[in-house]
């Protein structure tokens, strides 16, 4: 219900990883931007999608809800959903909401790529 202030960059790393770099605020209002980025990152049917949160500035519970719906979408496409670039605060939120049980967390893109 708030204005979207998130920006998403998309690129492909290796053959198997679509990367979405998140900048700004992730709230429920970021749904269109995130789902559009996911569609672009999935164009070549990568094995996994990596969400790079190193540019994340703010996230509320609506943003966490979006990640759950994105996870469902990725699972439906038989893709793994990964995350990197989380600082201690956001890592704790992933643990608190138990998202870390379904979204593997890596330090950075290189580590995520190496783990595939």
């Amino acid at each position, binding site marked *: 219900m708030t204005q979207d202030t998130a920006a998403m960059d998309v690129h492909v790393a290796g053959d198997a990883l679509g990367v979405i770099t998140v900048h700004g605020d992730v709230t*429920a209002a970021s749904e269109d931007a995130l789902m559009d980025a996911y569609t672009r990152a999935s164009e070549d049917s990568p094995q996994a999608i990596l969400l790079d949160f190193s540019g994340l500035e703010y996230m*509320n519970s609506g943003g966490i809800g979006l990640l*759950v719906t994105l996870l469902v979408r990725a699972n439906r496409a038989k893709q793994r959903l990964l995350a990197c670039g989380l600082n201690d605060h956001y890592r*704790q939120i992933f643990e608190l*909401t138990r998202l870390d049980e379904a979204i593997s967390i890596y330090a950075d893109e290189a580590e995520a790529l190496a783990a595939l």
Partner: protein
Amino acid sequence: MSEQQQNTARDEGNWATPVDRLEVGDVPAGALDTVGGKQVVSPIQGFGKMWQKTYRISLAGADVTPAELIQTWKDEFPSFWPKGSQFHAPLTGIAPGEVALLQASVGGGMKLSTGVFVLYADEESFTFMTPQGHMFAGWITFSAAEEDGATVAQCQVLMRAQDPLTEVGLVLGGHRKEDRFWQDTMRALAARFGVEAEPETSVVCVDKKRQWGRAGNVRHSSAFRSSVHTATAPLRKHK
């Protein structure tokens, strides 16, 4: 310090700090602590289909800002619940990390005692997360925003039934009952500000798959335990 670390402070105080198991402080009179020692669960840990249900009501004509509405909603939360269910707000109010106990009427004269964990709270929203044993695995976000000059209140539930029994119950009228519960809540909230309005309801099935690997959640189910307790009452009498 990186840009992200500097900016983290913007939402840091809004989130609860991680907990392994819930701890309940003073139990209010009339409440039952069935959640102490339980873990919180997200929709990922649930069993049934995943649903996103949104209930919205416009307070057009009321002189209230989104922040004022949310403050009132937090302060007077129990008073907006429909008759037959009780919400025992934490003594320190609805704030991140607090646990609230509740009794919900689940039909057949049976009441389910459970609770919720306050996952997130800011000036214009707050979110509850459910514990093991609750009927649903997920979270409920209450928010308000200004739209076309009016303050609009919203309640959004993202959840799965936590166990197979609840999933069957949802199919057999539970969804309708839950919709009515939140629609009544939204009407009561609007009435608090002198507005008589009808809420809009939107229901989306986010994931049609049931997570059979989570069927064992039933061992935590408060409803299951209450049913067994009720069913075995005559046996206990004859002992």
